C-alpha cells in the first residue's frame, strides 16, 4: 500500500508539472503566430516543449497503468476479484454507442446544416430526392446495425460462468437478410438508373444554348456562340498566343463567337455546356447545380442542365447578398488545382441578352492580324461583325 501511495504522490507532482508546462506552452503558442528567422531557437524550444509534454504524457500513462496494476494486485491479496477487463470494455462499448450516436446526431444537425443549399437546376431536384431516399435508408441501417454491434458487445461480454450459444447457421435467417438488402438495392438501382439516364440524356434538344468551357492549367476559358447559336469548330494545332483555344476560322460559325469571363446563363433555359481541356484532365464542378463532368483533352463532352434559380433568388433565399454560384476544378490537375475558379451567374433572359451584347468577340484584332484577315469595321458591335464576316 505504501508503495502505491508513493507512486500516487509522484504521479500527482508530475501531473502538476505537466499542467504548468502545458499552460506555458499554450501561451507561447499564442504569441508564436508570426515567427521570423531570428526565432529559430524559440522554434526548437517549442518543439522540445511538445516532445517533453508527450514524454510526460507517456510517463503519466505508464504510471497510471502501474497504479492500476498495484491496486489490482493488492486488492487481489485482500481476496477481492481482479479487474474484469471484459466488463470494463463491454461498458466502454455501451458508452461509446451512446456518445457516438449523440455525436453522429450532432454532426447531422450542425454540420448537416452547412451543406449545399437547395439545387439550382432542374435535374438537381431529382438528384436531391434520390439523395434523400438513399439517406433515409442508410441512416436507418446505420443506426440499427451500430446499435446491434455495440449492444451485443455490451450484452454478451464474457463471464466465466457463461457458455456461448452454439449457433452455426440458420438458412432461413440468412435468406431473409440476403433478400431484403437485394430488394432495397433493386429499388435504389432502378430509381438511380432512371435518374441517371434522365440527367445524361443525350438526345438533341432544340433551343439549347451552347456554351463552351475549356480547362487548362489553371483557368477556365469560356466561349459563347454569338447570334447563330453555333460554336465554331476547333483544332488544337491552330492554337496560338492570340487564338488560345485553337478556333478554326475556316468554319464560318466561328466568326461571331464571343469570349467571356463569367459563366452567365439565363434562368429556365436549357444550357448545353460543351466541355474540353487543353493540357491535362480537369473537372467542371458546379455543386449548386449538382453538375460535374471531367474535361478531358481529346474527348469533348457535354452536360445539359436547366438553371432554375437566379443568383439574386439564391441570395435572397440564403440571406447572403454576396453569394455567388461557383465553378470549381474537381480533378487534380497540378499545383494550382485548388484555385481554378469561375463565377457562375444565373440571370433573367432579358439581363442575359443585355450581358451578351457587351461581350467581346473571340475573333480579336490579334487573331485577325495572325490570319492576315482584311480589317473590316473594327469598331462595330459583335453582331455587326458577324454579318460582315458572313459577307466575306
Amino acid at each position, binding site marked *: 500500500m505504501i508503495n502505491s501511495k508513493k507512486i500516487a504522490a509522484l504521479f500527482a507532482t508530475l501531473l502538476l508539472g505537466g499542467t504548468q508546462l502545458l499552460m506555458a506552452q499554450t501561451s507561447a503558442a499564442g504569441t508564436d503566430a508570426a515567427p521570423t528567422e531570428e526565432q529559430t531557437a524559440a522554434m526548437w524550444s517549442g518543439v522540445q516543449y511538445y516532445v517533453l509534454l508527450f514524454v510526460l504524457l507517456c510517463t503519466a500513462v505508464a504510471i497510471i497503468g502501474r497504479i492500476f496494476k498495484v491496486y489490482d494486485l493488492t486488492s487481489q491479496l485482500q481476496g477481492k476479484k481482479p479487474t474484469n477487463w471484459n466488463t470494463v470494455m463491454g461498458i466502454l462499448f455501451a458508452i461509446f454507442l451512446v456518445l457516438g450516436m449523440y455525436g453522429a446526431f450532432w454532426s447531422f444537425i450542425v454540420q448537416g446544416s452547412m451543406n449545399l443549399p437547395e439545387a439550382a437546376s432542374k435535374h438537381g431536384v431529382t438528384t436531391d430526392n434520390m439523395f434523400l431516399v438513399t439517406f433515409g435508408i442508410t441512416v436507418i441501417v446505420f443506426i440499427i446495425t451500430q446499435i446491434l454491434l455495440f449492444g451485443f458487445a455490451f450484452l*454478451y461480454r464474457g463471464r466465466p460462468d457463461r457458455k456461448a450459444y452454439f449457433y452455426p447457421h440458420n438458412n432461413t435467417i440468412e435468406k431473409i437478410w440476403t433478400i431484403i438488402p437485394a430488394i432495397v438495392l433493386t429499388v435504389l438501382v432502378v430509381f438511380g438508373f432512371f435518374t441517371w439516364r434522365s440527367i445524361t440524356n443525350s438526345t438533341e434538344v432544340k433551343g439549347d444554348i451552347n456554351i463552351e468551357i475549356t480547362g487548362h492549367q489553371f483557368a477556365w476559358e469560356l466561349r459563347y456562340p454569338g447570334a447563330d447559336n453555333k460554336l465554331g469548330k476547333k483544332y488544337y494545332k491552330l492554337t496560338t498566343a492570340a487564338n488560345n483555344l485553337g478556333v478554326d476560322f475556316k468554319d464560318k460559325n466561328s466568326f461571331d463567337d464571343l469570349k467571356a469571363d463569367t459563366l452567365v446563363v439565363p434562368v429556365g433555359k436549357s444550357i448545353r455546356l460543351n466541355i474540353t481541356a487543353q493540357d491535362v484532365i480537369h473537372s467542371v464542378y458546379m455543386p449548386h447545380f449538382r453538375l460535374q463532368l471531367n474535361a478531358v483533352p*481529346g474527348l469533348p463532352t457535354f452536360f445539359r442542365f436547366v438553371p432554375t434559380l437566379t443568383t439574386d433568388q439564391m441570395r435572397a433565399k440564403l440571406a447572403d447578398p454576396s453569394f455567388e454560384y461557383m465553378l470549381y476544378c*474537381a480533378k487534380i490537375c497540378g499545383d494550382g488545382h485548388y484555385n481554378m475558379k469561375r463565377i457562375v451567374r444565373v440571370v433573367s433572359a432579358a439581363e442575359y441578352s443585355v450581358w451578351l451584347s457587351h461581350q467581346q468577340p473571340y475573333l480579336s484584332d490579334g487573331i485577325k492580324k495572325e490570319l492576315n484577315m482584311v480589317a473590316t469595321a473594327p469598331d462595330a458591335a459583335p453582331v455587326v461583325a458577324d454579318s460582315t464576316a458572313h459577307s466575306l
Partner: protein
Amino acid sequence: MSTLAVQDHGAHHDGHDHGHEHHHDTFLTKYIFSQDHKMIAKQFLITGITMAVIAMILSILFRIQLAYPDHAFPLMETLLGRFAPGGRLDPGFYLSLVTIHGTIMVFFVLTAGLSGTFSNLLIPLQVGARDMASPFMNMLSYWLFFTASVIMLSSFFIEKGPASGGWTIYPPLSALPKAMKGSDMGMTLWLISMVCFVASSLLGGINYVSTILNMRTKGMDLWKMPLTIWAFFLTAILGVLAFPVLVAGVVLLIFDRSFGTSFYLSDIVLQGKVMSFEGGSPILFQHLFWFLGHPEVYIVIMPALGISSEIIATNSRKPIFGYHAMVYSLIGISVLSFIVWGHHMFVTGMNPFLGGVFMITTLIIAVPSAVKTFNYLATLWRGNIRFTPAMLFAIGLVSFFISGGLTGLFLGNAALDINLHDTYFVVAHFHLVMGSAAIFGMLAGVYHWFPRMFGKMMDERLGYLHFWLTFIGAYLVFFPMHFMGLDGVPRRYYAFTEFESMKRWLSVNMFITWAAIMSALAQVAFLFNFIYSIFWGKKAPMNPWGSNTIEWTAPVEHLHGNWPGEIPTVYRWPYDYSKPGHHEDFIPQTVPLSQTMSSNQEHDYEENEAGLQAHKEWVAANKKNEEVK
C-alpha cells in the same frame, strides 16, 4: 488428392536434431534472405509497419497545412527544406504528400503489409504445410517489395520531389513531365517502384494460391479451411488476375512518357505549346487502372475480413455464423469486383449508358457485403465475448465497414456521384471502409497472432489504450468529412482560403487535424508495445486464445518446417466453439470426432455413412444408459 506429399515437404527433423538445424543458418539466411515463411511474414510486417508510420507522418504534414493554411511553421522548413519554403508547404509538395500517402497506404501497407504478412504467416500454418509451395519465390517476393519501397521513398530525395498526380496517376498529368514538378523524375521512380511491387505481389500471389490448393494437410478439405484462408486465397486470385493489367497500363504510360507514343494522349496544348500527340485516350488509362484499382480495394479489405472472422469467432467463443454464406459472399465479392470498375469513372465522359450498367453491378456488390455484416452481428449474438485487443479491433473493423460501406450506396449511384465525385465525401467513404477497416484488420491480426509470430504476448492494457484512441480518433477524423463533401468541397485542395464558401470549413479542418494528431500519437502505444514485447514480452503459451485452428498446435519455438514430426491431421471445421456436450468451449481441428462423441451432431457426419452409423449407435446406447439411471 489435395494433400500430396506434404509429409515429406521441407526440412525433416525431429526435436532432437534441432541444434543440427541451427548449424546451417547463418545470420544472413535466417534473418535477411530467409526462405522460412514465418520469417518472411515478419519481414513483411515490419516493413509494412515502417511504411505505415512514414505514410502516417506524411498525412499529418498535409493535415497541418489544411488546418493552418495561413500559418508558417519554421520547423517544417527545417525538416523539409525547399519543399516548405518559409515554413509553409509548397502546393506541389502538398500534392506529393497526398499522392505518396495514398500510394504507400494502399499498396505498401494494406496490400503487401497486410496480405503479405498474414498470408505468409497463416497459409502454411493454417492449412498444415511445412512452408510455402516455393520458399525461394517467397523470398524474392519480399525482396522485390523491399526494393519497391526503397525506390518509392527515394523519390523524396530527388530535386523535383516525388510523384504528385494523385495515387491514381491519371495521364496526361502523369504522362507529361512538364505538367508539374512531380511528373518528372518522381513519376519515373513511382512507375519503376510499382512494376517491382506488382512483380512482388504476383510472386506472392501465385505462391499463396498453389500452397492452398496443393499443400493442405490430411483432412483439410476446402470446406474445413478457416475463413482467413478463404480470404487470402480469393485475395491472391484477385491479385494475380488484376495486377498484370496495372503493369500493362504502367508500361504504356512509360512509353508515352519516354518514347513519344500516344496511347493516352491526344490534342494537347501544354502551357501554350502545341504537342504532337494524337489519337490516344486518357480514359483508356483509367479503364486499365481501375480494372486493377477496384479489385485492389477488395484485395485490401478481404484479408481484413478474413482475419476478423477468425478473431470474432474465437473471442465470441461461438462458431462464425453462416460459414458457407461467408465463403459464398467472399466469392461473390471477388467475382463482382471485376465488373464494377466503371463506378470510378461515372463523370469522366465515359458513355453514360456504361455508367448505368456499372451502377447496377456496383449496387449488387452491396448484397454480399451486407450478408457478411449481418453474419458478424449474428456471431456476436449470445456469445461469451472476450475482449482481447484483437477482438476490439475486429469489432472496430465491423463498425467502420458498416459506416463506410453505407456511404458506398451514395457513391455507387451514378446520379448521386455526379455531385459527390472527387469531393471529401469520397475521402470519408474510402478512408472508413477501406483505410480504417483494413488497418484495423491488420492491427487485430497483429495482436492476435503476435504470440504465434514472436512467441511472446503483447501487453493487453496498452492494446486497450491504443484501440480506444485510434477508434475514436478515426471517427472524429473521417465523420465530419462527409459533410464537407456534401457542401461540395473538392478533395486534394491545397488551401480552403481561395474560395469564400469553403472558409467556414477551416474550423472543422482544424478539429480533424487535431483528431488525426491524437490518433497518430496513439500509435506510439502500439509501436512501444510491439517492440517491447518482441524482446521483453511474457512468453506465450502454445494456444493463448483457446483457438481451434491448427497453427496453435505448432510449438512456440519456431522451427523450419513448423511441426516436429508429422503434420497434424484435421478432422473437423475450425469453428467448434462452445459446442454443447463438450467439457471445454473449444475443440481444436485436430481432435477426431471419435474423441468427442458427447458433443457430435448428425451434421458433423455429412458424407460419412459409417461415422453417422456409429454416432446413431452411440446416441441410442447413451439414451439407454440414461433410462437405466
